[in-house]
Each structure stands twice: as C-alpha cells, then as structure tokens.
C-alpha cells in the first residue's frame, strides 16, 4: 500500500511542477490564473514531501531512492527557493512564473533519478533553466556573462564524463563548481547589482544543495587516509570562506554584502556537509536548512529595502528602524542566525559535525573558519547598524514596512532555526530511524 502511495507522491512531485510551467507558458488564459492557485501547488508539494517522510518512518524502504529522507530535506529547501523565484517572476513580470516551476521540475527529477543517464539529463535541464533565469533577471547579452555561463557549461560537460569510466575522477568537479571551493568560487561570490537579489540567492542555494546531493549520490569524494588531499580540500574551502568574509566587509552595497556573507557561510558548510553526508545525514540536513532559511530571508529583506528606499548603498540608508520596525527585528534575527550565533541551527550544525576524518590540519581550518565567522559578524552587524540605526537619511519617498503576512512567514522560517539550534539531533533521529540512509 505504501509503495503505491509513494509512487503517486513521486509522480506528483514531478508532474505538478512541469504542469505548472506548461500551464503558465503554453496555455495563456484570457484571465490569468490567480497567484494563489500556483501557491497552492507548492503547498501540495510540501505536503507530499512531509507525507513521504512520514511514510518512510512507518515503513522504511531502503531500496527506494525517495526513502532517502535527506533528499526530501533538500527538496524542501529547493521548493522554498523555487517558490521565491516564482513569486519574483510574477512580481517583476519576467516570465509569469514558468521558470520557477521548471527549475523545480528538473531539481525534483535530479533528486529522484536512480539512473546516471537520467540524472545527467535532469542536471543538464537544471543548468539550462538556471541560465534562463539568469538571463531573464540579470543578463542582457545573448550569451550572458562568462563567470556564470562558464561553470554551467563546464559542469554539464564534466558530469557527462561520468558516463565514461575514464572520466569519473573529473565528475566531482561538475558539482564542486557550484560550491564555494577555491578557485571555482568566482561566480558564486559575484552578485549582480540589478534585478532581484532573492532570485540570485535562491539560484545559488538550489545549485549548492543539489551539488551536495550530486557529490554524495553520484561521485562521492574519497580522500586517502595517508595523503594530504583532505588538508588541501579543507584549506581551499577555508580560503573561499575568508575571501567571502573579507568581501562582505569591503562591500558597500547592501545586497552584495549580504550575498558575500551567504557565500562565506556556504564555504564554511561545504566540507562539513560533504563529510557528514555518508554517515550523519542529520547533521548535513541541519546545515542545509540552517543555511537556506536565513539566506533566503535576508535576500527577501534586502529586496524590500532596496525597493522601498530606492537605494543600494549602505551609506545612503539609515534610521529605518522607525519606518520598518518589523524588518528591523527580523533582519537582526536573521543576521544572528546566518552568522552562526550560539542557539542557531548553523552553530549547532557546525559544532555537531564529525571532525574525525580530518587530521591535524583540522585546527588550521578551525582557526580560519572562526576568523572568517568573526569577520562576517563584523560585516553583518555593521550592515544592520548602517541600514536601521542612526539618523534617517533625507528621502522624499515614503517607505513602508514589510507586510504582516511576510513578517509572519519570516517568523515561521525563523522558528526552525532556533529549534535546530537547541535540538539539532531531531533531524538526525528522523532520518536515521527511517532507515533510508
């Protein structure tokens, strides 16, 4: 009975996004369907994911790929990101919301694929959709910017090599390109100055999470116990983290500073997620959730600030605590969560990670990581101080706070962060008792 239900859920997971994209793109109704209808589709998908987790707790089925609840956690993160892309597509009348659904379709397919060739197809589709999103929101050139299109092309080629036995050792690079990993991190630390910041952050989050999954599922990294390759890997991640933190300090544009901070924390989480995935999927899930939620929330808040103030430079903002009390509090809370303050999921996830694989170089990495986080805390607090505190900047435009609905949504997004900070083992216990991994 369960297996039938799970097949239905899998079908829904794939069918709803592609149907949504098709309806928006190819069947333009005389009167457009309301946004709530599409939001309901996303809600159904969330329900399907949660139901799947519940089903596998009742009757674990290790043979089924969907049983790997970690994939479901990633799927939830991807869902949220795609939903935000969808909303901004509608808001900015970019493509009516089809790209968000399409990205979700390919992401779901990639997570559900049990064959390498099928996974490759979905991955290529995912990369192409990401490119289309980039074009739609940011790129005015026919071929887009090289820092973004380059990694997409390389990734497709490198993952294709996985089909050939001789090229397998190169295939992890297909995914490492989308993780903050020196020197491939150039595109991730880049943030366009125009367009919606949230969409860019959501794109990065999707590619990051799916890359972690791709490495785990299709080309696991293996570090010889005696060699120095693991140390080199840790060192490169630490370099990317420090670079992100310093970039955040140097940036004077609000969205770029936030974006660089997210990049830096992604670099912190990269080795931890990759180490945790084989044996401790709960820790990896905590890290993914704790990274995704504040990243997206800060993206939304940054867009709202820019939209209301019509300004991008931190120095041009100030004193917004009067007009935006909700945004002020939520921005403060999410920068604390993103900067891995104790009590946040990110802190507990990082501290609960298994460091046993690393040798003495772990301490060098730890030193670099702590330094990076301290620099990040400096940059983020300074951003909050510049945006919300101090005397108000002279502006002719009236500014308004975030809506009550958005505020409630963000508060709901914050609660899991606290919950995971206090009890990070909860995700692990759910995933492990399901027997999926």
């Amino acid at each position, binding site marked *: 009975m369960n297996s039938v239900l799970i097949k239905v859920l899998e079908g829904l997971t794939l069918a709803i996004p592609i149907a949504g994209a098709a309806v928006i793109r190819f069947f333009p109704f005389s009167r457009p369907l309301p946004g709530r209808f599409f939001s309901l589709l996303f809600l159904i998908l969330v329900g399907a994911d949660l139901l799947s987790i519940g089903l596998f707790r009742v009757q674990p089925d290790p043979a089924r790929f969907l049983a790997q609840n970690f994939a479901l956690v990633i799927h939830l993160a991807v869902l949220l990101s795609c939903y935000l892309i969808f909303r901004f597509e509608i808001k900015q009348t970019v493509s009516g919301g089809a790209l968000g659904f399409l990205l979700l379709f390919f992401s779901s397919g990639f997570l559900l694929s049990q064959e390498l060739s099928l996974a490759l197809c979905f991955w290529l589709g995912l990369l192409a959709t990401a490119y289309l999103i980039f074009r739609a929101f940011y790129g005015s*050139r026919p071929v887009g910017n090289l820092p973004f299109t380059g990694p997409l092309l390389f990734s497709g080629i490198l993952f294709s090599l996985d089909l050939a036995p001789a090229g397998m050792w190169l295939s992890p690079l297909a995914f490492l390109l989308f993780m903050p990993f020196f020197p491939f991190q150039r595109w991730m630390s880049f943030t366009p100055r125009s367009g919606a910041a949230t969409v860019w952050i959501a794109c990065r989050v999707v590619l990051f999470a799916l890359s972690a999954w791709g490495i785990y599922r299709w080309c696991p990294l293996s570090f010889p116990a005696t060699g120095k390759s693991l140390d080199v890997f840790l060192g490169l991640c630490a370099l990317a983290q420090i670079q992100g933190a310093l970039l955040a300090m140097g940036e004077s544009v609000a969205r770029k500073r936030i974006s660089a901070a997210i990049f830096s924390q992604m670099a912190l989480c990269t080795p931890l997620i990759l180490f945790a995935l084989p044996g401790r999927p709960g820790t990896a899930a905590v890290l993914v959730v704790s990274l995704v939620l504040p990243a997206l929330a800060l993206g939304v808040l940054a867009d709202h600030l820019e939209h209301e103030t019509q300004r991008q430079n931190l120095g041009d903002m100030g004193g917004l605590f009067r007009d935006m009390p909700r945004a002020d509090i939520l921005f403060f809370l999410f920068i604390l969560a993103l900067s891995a303050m104790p009590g946040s999921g990110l802190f507990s996830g990082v501290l609960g990670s298994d460091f046993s694989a690393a040798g003495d170089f772990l301490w060098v990495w730890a030193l670099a990581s702590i330094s990076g986080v301290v620099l990040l805390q400096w940059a983020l*607090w300074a951003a909050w101080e510049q945006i919300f505190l101090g005397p108000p900047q002279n502006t002719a435009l009236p500014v308004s706070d975030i809506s009550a609905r958005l505020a409630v949504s963000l508060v709901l997004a914050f609660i899991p962060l606290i919950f995971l900070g206090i009890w990070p083992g909860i995700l692990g216990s759910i995933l492990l008792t399901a027997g999926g991994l």
Partner: protein
Amino acid sequence: MHLASVLLILVPVMPLAGAGIAYAFSRGDDGTAFFWTRLGVVLSLLDCIFLVVRSGSGLIRARLFPDPFSRIPGPDIGLVYDPLAAVMSFLILSVSLVILAFSRRYMTGEPRSDHFLGAIGLATGFLLLLVTARNLVLLYAAWELVLVALCLLLVHHRNRRESSRPALKTWVMNQIGGGFFLGGILVLGQAAGTFDLDGLFASLLPGPIDGGAGLFSGRMTPSAIVWGTLLIGIGILVRSSQLPFHLWLPVTLDAPTPVSGFMHAGIVNAGGFVLNRLSPLFVHSPGVLHGLFVVGAATAIYGSAVMLVQVSVKQTLVYSTMGQMGYMFAECGLGVFPAAIFHMIAHGIFKATLFLGSGSVIHTSRFHEHSPKGSLSRAFGRHRILWVLGGSLLISLPLILLLSDTFRGKPFLPGTGGLILLFFGLATAMQTVFNLFRFSHLLTPRAVLAFTGMFALVFGLYWGGLTWFDRILDPLSKTQFLTPQGPAWSFFYPVALLTMGFILVAGWIFLAREASDGRKFPAVFALSGRLHDFLDQCGYAEILVRRWLRTPLESWASTIRKIHERTGEGSSPEAFLTGKPDE
C-alpha cells in the same frame, strides 16, 4: 524530574520570560514592561532562595537538552546550582533589581523605554544561564547571548550614531574574544571528548596522560590544557576589558547610566566568573595563570593611571573598573580564586552604586555651573558618604587582602606572588587616594573619621568574607598555591613600607606640581605633562589599533572587492571581442 531541578531551570527562564512578555505586550507602556520584567527577576530571586534552603551546601542538577556535541557518552546539556552559582545568582539578581528600579524612573518619558527594561531582563536571564551552565557549549552560548543583550542595551538611543558605533565596536571586539573562547572550548572538548564540565574535570584526574603527546592527540594532554586555557583566557580578557583588549569599554559611555551600571557590575565581571568556574582547569596551566597575573597587574596600573587624568566622572569610573578587574585577574593569576569572587561581588555592588549615583552628581553640577573649585562636596549632598564608602572599599581591598594573612594565620598569598601583588595593590590604592585628594573638600575631619571607620569595617568584612568564601566555595573554587615559597614575611613588610613610601613621595611631587603650576619643579612639570598627554590618549592605544589592525583589514577587504569587481567586468565573450564593458 525533581522539583528542585524544575526550579533550577526556572532561575534563568523567569527573567527571560518576563522580558519576553515585556517586549511582546508592553506596547510602549514602560509601567507594564517594568511590572513583567521585575516580576520575572523577583520570582527568580525567590526561587534562588528556595534552592539555597533546599540544597544546603549540596548540588542541584537539571537536564535541558540532549548533548549532540560530545564524542563520549555523558550527561545531557544542563544546569547546576552549586555555591558558586548561588553566590553569583544573588549578585546578578540583586543588581538587576536595583538597576530596574532605577531605570523605571530614569527612563520615564524616553521612547522605547519598555524595550530597554525588557533588554535588562534578557541580560539578567542570560547571565543567570551563564552562571548555572554545567556544559562548555551552554556556557559559551550564554556568554554570547549576554553580549547580544548588552549590545541591544547600548543601541537604545537608536537614532544616534554616537550610540550605535560604540555598540558596533563592542560587538566586534567581543566577537574577536568570542572566537578565542570558542577555539579554547573546541580544544578542550576535542581533547576530553566531552563538553560537560564534570567530564572535563574528571579527565584531569591523575591517569594515563601522556606528557609527550601533542595538542592533536585527542586526549587531555598538558598541551591541550595549556592551549585551551590560553584561548579561553584571552576571550575572558576581552570581555573584562583587559589590556590590550580594553578599547571597547571606554567608548560605551554614551549608553544610559543604568546600562553602564549593569555592565560594570554584572557583565564585565562575567569573565572573572568563568575563570573561577574553570579554575580546576586553569590550575593545571600555571603558565597561563601567570600570564593572567601579568596582564591583570598591568591593567590595574594602566587603568588607575589613566583614571587620574580623566575629567568625566563616568570615564573615571570606567577606568576604575578596568583597574579593579585587573586586580581580580591578578588574584586569579596567583591562584586566589575565592578572593577574586569576593572582590568581584564587592566591586559589582559598589560600582553599580557609584554609577547610579554619578548621574545625580553630574545633574547637580550642571545646574551649578559657577560653583567654585572644591565646592562639589555641596553638590554631592547626601551622596557624599556614598562616595566615601564606595571609594574606601575599592582602594582598601588589596591592602586588606594582604593584611588579612596575618590574622588568618596561614600564608594566603605565599612567596613572591604575594609580594608582587602587594606592590601593584599598593600602587593602585595610593593612586586612588591621590585621586580622592583632588576632591580635597572631602577630607574634612568628619570624612576622615568616616573613612577610618569604614576602613576598619571593611577590613573586618573583607577578612570575614574571604574566610567565608574560602569555605563555601571549596572545592569548586579554592585557593591554590601556585607560586613557590619566596622570601620570609620579615622581608615582606619592609618592602611594603618602602613601596608605600616611594608612592607617597611620587604622589607628593605630582600634587606639588599641580599646586605650583610648574614654577617650583619645571623638569618634573615637563615630564609629567608628557605623561599626562600619554595617559589622556590612553597610551595611544586607539591610534595603534587603527593603524595596525583596522586600517590594514579594511584595506585588504577593499582590495579584494576591487579585484572582484575588476574580474567581473568585461568578462563576457562579447565584452572580450568588442572591448565594451558589460552592462
């Protein structure tokens, strides 16, 4: 779960809940906020009294969450109520109550005063969590959350950059310290396999510790203890504003007076508490303790010297706090942990009183702008005795501490450690006397009589307090004999007298220079002028930090951003072919 455990959990929870309700439901009404915040603190205080009565001298433990961080199985993350936690809880709660009552009147009519009261409740709750934590991770979490609450208090005047910038500085400096603290915790936790304090201390027991093994062996080796305590020690020094991490404290004076009072009485002291809580670890690392002694003694001298040249009452009190914290670290560095706790409590209570009283002095002075020099005593009014009381206790602490050895009949501060402490103690104490001498109007027969009486009273209290603390805190935090036996006490007292004489002569020259305006002692006048400038600029520490740390860091950040922007521009194939930059 036992009733006592539940009540223990409620100790930090009640002020936090009160603060939360104040934030959520006060809606700008400071009366409502005051009611809920005070209710939380009062209930917590009653709870503490009940726990003390119930536990006697025993321990009460409570479990909070499962421990996902420790490598070896152990108890869950939780709280403990021992004599050290009890003493600190009473200090925090009583100071918090006084500050709340003061703030209620002080902040009347100010915008967001309800949030201010709520933030005091938050800080109180997090401090209580800190003193009752029995796990290093929880301790660190509380340590950082106290900082968040402190910064919220500091940015109370949100529309003023003069408030928000110091808060940013406080945040950054303390996060640097927090990074060291976290590093130390990781080293110790990795070595012991657990972050639980009992487990950590148990791993120190004599056993198969390989003295030759390094830091990375994954066992509690001597090098792991040294590195762990060193890093935690640096973190503590930052929070307690000790050299060279002291720059954040003097810039926080723009905050409302109650914040200064609470900060100096409860938050800056937190470093001393952590040092005492982890004293079983620190005594295994005498090198680090000696380092703390050196830093503490240097800060005591620095703070006391800079205090001399300050013109602002609150600024003077800030440097006084630094000096007193320096004393406390020096005491800890010599292994006299119970004395440091007693010192901390005495300092906390009196510094809060002095800060809260300073506002009325400033207020009175503001309305008597044409008061002739020396007439400030009239402005003090009923606070005069308060000043004498507070000041006399502060300056007499080191001397009393040492004199109490004679009456205790045992070498409380044996050997060279005691000698060094005596020297620095006397130097700072005499400096404070000279500072008081500037308010010469206070040295009336009545004041001198009061001073002497207070000295005797404080002497008795201090001696009794030290003995009592030594007893009740044992074995959690006991006096350690870390320094080798040095010269005999027959040598000790002549040196003490010589030191005192030297300081008296130096002080007389200083005062004579002030009185004669440089006419009698031109060379001394020029030298002391330079010294005055040096101290007035706080040893040029701010300039040094800006030049050697902040500017290079910002320069690197700017360079990375420029490189980033440069490689981002014109990198599309079309831009490469046409030479036109990207849009």
